[in-house]
């Protein structure tokens, strides 16, 4: 039966859409056909914008108050970017805008038109993981994994910025990303390893 082949991610995506406001009779029917998922409710003050995410331009209809994090997760189904504190304190929502790491929870989606957004989904070059993703796996740089997309997005930027010059520097320049499991030593090891492999070591 098709319903039984529902993936966890797809099921959670469908559940989130339900929580987003529309109650449907048969959740699993959406899961089988993602295109049938209801989107967020349209309100009168919504605006149509185009976001360029991971190299793809996509039209999306948002409220002026919709932040980039919610636009990515709820409107574009890019759920790799995580919502932790929703106040810019934890870094789980870190994405790159025009190559700079930022907190997507503090960024209004409507202000991102014309900018190049990169999320964790845009790092890998199929079938190869991004070197920082591979290093996090090799060094066990996570436990629960919730902060990991933000940690990796921050780490990629940190290496490109040339900040990974010592363990202390890595810790300081990763201070915008919290890990409540306490995987910090392995995160630092992963970043050092990825820096060596990127040839950016100083």
């Amino acid at each position, binding site marked *: 039966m098709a319903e039984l082949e529902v993936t966890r991610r797809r099921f959670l995506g469908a559940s989130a859409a339900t929580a987003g406001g529309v109650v449907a009779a048969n959740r699993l029917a959406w899961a089988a056909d993602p295109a049938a998922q209801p989107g967020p409710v349209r309100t009168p003050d919504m605006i149509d914008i185009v976001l360029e995410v991971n190299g793809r331009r996509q039209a999306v209809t948002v409220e002026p108050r919709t932040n980039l994090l919610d636009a990515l997760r709820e409107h574009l189904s890019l759920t790799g970017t995580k919502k932790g504190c929703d106040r*810019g304190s934890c*870094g789980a929502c*870190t994405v790159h805008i025009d190559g700079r*790491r930022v907190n997507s*929870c*503090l960024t209004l989606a409507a202000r991102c038109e014309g900018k190049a957004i990169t999320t964790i989904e845009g790092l890998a070059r199929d079938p190869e993981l991004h070197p920082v993703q591979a290093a996090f796996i090799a060094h066990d740089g996570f436990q629960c994994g919730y902060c990991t997309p933000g940690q990796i997005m921050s780490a990629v*930027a940190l290496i490109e910025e040339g900040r990974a010059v010592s363990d202390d520097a890595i810790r300081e320049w990763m201070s915008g990303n919290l890990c409540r499991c306490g995987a910090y030593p392995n995160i630092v090891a992963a970043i050092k390893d990825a820096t060596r492999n990127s040839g950016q070591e100083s």
Partner: protein
Amino acid sequence: MEAFTIAAPRDLDAALAAAQQGDAKFIAGGTDLMQLMKDFVERPKRLVDIDGLPLDGVTIGADGARIGALVRMADLADHAEIRRQYPVVAEALLASASPQVRNMATIGGNLLQRTRCGYFRDVGSPCNKREPGTGCPAIRGDHRRLAILGGSDYCIATNPSDLAVALLALDASVELRGPGGTRVVPLNDFYLLPGDTPQRETVLAPGELITAVLLPSAGADRRSHYVKLRDRASFEFALVSAAIVVDRAGDRIRNARVAVGGVGTKPWRLPQVEAALSGAPATREAIAEAAARAGDGAHPLPENGFKIPLMQRALTRALLTAIA
């Protein structure tokens, strides 16, 4: 967050006109405003997006530096000539916030960020700054992180900016632009004491905008340093910070400008410490003696008296590092 409309005017005059409409707020980096809106502390009906305005340049000449209000914290901290001539600015910036926030937040916005007092940021609590006349729970409540200088019976909220402390020690001014024109205000006069109107934090008129920060030229024999002490090693607001700018003459201090953060209801200059340092020998004893005067006029509450010795030690360390 409550609903709002957003407009992105093409030029400064259009932005100033848009801000004259009721319940409007300028938004640039948005890092503080977004938090305040999410917590319903700020509830603007319209946002005026000033990001596209040409206020993001840094120019340095013989008569000083002009830093556009829309320069990002990260960019100013990385600016080679700012790092060379005004290193205390870069030090204060790099001790602020996180790399992500510094990539977003602007210099003008940094100077206008609101206090981190927990009562101010919790709309379930009374707060004279947020809702004038409702009272200040901090005075008899949780005030460990709050002010020992400049407070009143109405408010003891600290100004959280690191940058403002460094700029104050550099005798910076801010350039303001409003419908009535442009004016320049020394940073020390820009911030207001809370008195009985803690909701008024600066001399900015409604609809007026910071367009630039102006720094006097840096002297040749100048030394400076910024020290920030906090509850965790990084990404935390200051319990106490100190910015020192000293001009040396041989083995003596010709003059010193001394500002502290985390202790005042506004970024705080310490003229009595500056007077004690003026002409003093550049020795540990003379510096410690001058720093001991930092607590003159302080009004500690039961839980924040520790800030007086902490401030004296922060000053001593900053001065010793600066002249080393």
